[in-house]
């Protein structure tokens, strides 16, 4: 009993001693955020015709897929009865954001991401189906769905279809991560979560993290393959990262200022929590290291002329800090929302374990897994042509 109560300050409702949602539930919005963000970056090229980011188009889609495939895993590991999770599809409660999210996820995976990737890669898939033998060849043949038509007309049809899919895909990506924000934002019982801004804040921080992730992956994979990094591409991505970050930061500041100004009944409790238990993750990691510093670095590249090498260094640093900052944001929302009591009179602590089902080890493994999957996907569907430049193998529209 004493160990359970360790770390409890003030008065909490007796059932609030243990946190309900763990590190895995922090991981989940982080991962889906990367999906949404990577997809938005890809759609910059497809829908908004930002040609400069073309080299990252396919990589962004594959990254999105790799993370999307891993996204349900932290949820499954967290459930008391993962074997019953099919119930969410059999008898979804339409008033529950969590239930409806299951369909948003499925829609996004099937009708948007997989379709988009398939349409973009179809020519290569057909070529590989014809050239490869063995089980891999069979896999490619299956992916062709029996159609080997790669004439100009077929490919143009693909292009048009792909445009439509991306067009639908952008609001779908917004829905995907906005929904996660709504899952938190609609909980009126929790004042740290309950705000109409939650879906929007989640979405913009997702865009920021996704763009940063693709930028970092692009730079890393290009280097690993021994090629030149397309600076025009990276400069453009960094610029979009900067814009998205400014919006995200403004939204978060708006929320903060609003809370401080209105100072409703929960304010004192939350303020105390942020200044004590959440000081390190919120003020230091999320705000200073994870937002102000990368924003400063990115702003610097916009205002001061730097060498290519310097810019790459700045982008890499800013990108990494951004990822850490956005992860911290998820931590502060999920864990932070459970550290204070709904009596507004006390606090508890989060006892993160190491080798348990929802412990640190599992979380790290789940963060590594998407990169392994991405590696597999890159092998299966290479995002870059064999010969040198990291341009995609699509004919110009």
């Amino acid at each position, binding site marked *: 009993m004493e160990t359970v109560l360790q770390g409890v300050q003030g008065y909490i409702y007796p059932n609030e001693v243990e946190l309900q949602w763990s590190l895995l539930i922090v991981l989940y919005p982080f991962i889906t955020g990367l999906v949404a963000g990577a997809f938005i970056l890809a759609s910059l090229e497809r829908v908004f015709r930002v040609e400069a980011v073309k080299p990252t188009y396919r990589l962004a889609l594959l990254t999105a897929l790799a993370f999307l495939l891993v996204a349900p895993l932290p949820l499954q590991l967290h459930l008391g009865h993962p074997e019953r999770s*099919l119930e969410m*599809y*059999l*008898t979804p*409660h339409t008033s529950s954001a969590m239930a409806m999210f299951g369909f948003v996820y499925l829609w996004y995976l*099937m*009708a948007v991401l997989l*379709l988009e990737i*398939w349409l973009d890669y*179809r020519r290569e898939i057909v070529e590989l189906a014809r050239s490869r033998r063995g089980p891999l060849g069979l896999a490619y043949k299956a992916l*062709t*769905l*029996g*159609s080997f*038509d790669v*004439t100009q*007309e*077929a490919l143009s*049809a*693909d292009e048009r*279809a792909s445009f439509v899919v991306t067009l639908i895909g952008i609001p779908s990506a917004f829905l995907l991560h906005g929904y996660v924000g709504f899952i938190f934002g609609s909980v009126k019982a929790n004042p740290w979560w309950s705000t109409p801004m939650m879906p929007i804040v989640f979405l913009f921080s997702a865009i920021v993290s996704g763009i940063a992730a693709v930028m970092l992956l692009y730079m890393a994979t290009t280097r690993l393959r021994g090629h030149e990094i397309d600076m025009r591409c990276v400069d453009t991505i960094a610029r979009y990262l900067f814009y998205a970050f400014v919006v995200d930061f403004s939204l978060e500041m708006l929320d903060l200022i609003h809370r401080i100004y209105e100072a409703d009944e929960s304010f004192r409790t939350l303020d105390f929590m942020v200044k004590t238990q959440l000081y390190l993750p919120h003020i230091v990691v999320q705000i200073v290291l994870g937002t102000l510093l990368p924003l400063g670095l990115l702003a610097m590249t916009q205002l001061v002329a730097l060498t290519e090498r310097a810019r790459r260094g700045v982008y890499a640093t800013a990108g990494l800090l951004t990822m850490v900052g956005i992860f911290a944001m998820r931590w502060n929302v999920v864990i932070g929302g459970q550290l204070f009591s709904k009596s507004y009179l006390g606090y508890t602590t989060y006892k993160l374990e190491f080798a348990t089902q929802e412990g640190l080890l599992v979380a790290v493994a789940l963060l590594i897994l998407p990169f392994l999957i991405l590696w597999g996907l890159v092998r299966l569907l290479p995002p870059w042509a064999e010969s040198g430049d990291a341009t995609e193998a699509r004919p110009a529209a």
Partner: protein
Amino acid sequence: MKGLFGHKEHLVRVGALFMAGVAAFLVLQALMIPKGFGAYGHYRPGAMDDSRARPLAYAGRAACVECHSDVWEVLQKGKHAHVRCEGCHGPLARHAEDPSAGKALKPDPKVLCARCHQESVARPASFPQVDVAGHSGGEVCTSCHKAHDPLEQGAAR
């Protein structure tokens, strides 16, 4: 078969695949939804029966009075009339079911009485409470008070 949709054939195939998936899902859903789900609301009506099927631990005073009406006679007249039997004697559904099976425990007055009557700042002022140690002078409560009729004529005054 080839050329039915011209160069859009593969798009139609993917569309058909999607539709097939949706159909398969709907079939699965129809087959696997628990019986009766949704009859009264978005839940399995059997859950209400499950909740009702739990065994009783407390019998309720009426069950006690059936056999122990003599005690009830005494209780009715005194200050503990509204205190139900199991509040002091613990859960007795098994005993009520089969008196020989589970015996009722006679609670320890050294512990029981003080649990309610030890004076406390948080207890309503109108509630009878004393500083038990000072009041009893070390004696057990039942040496002066009858548990079932604590303020009986002449007692403890």
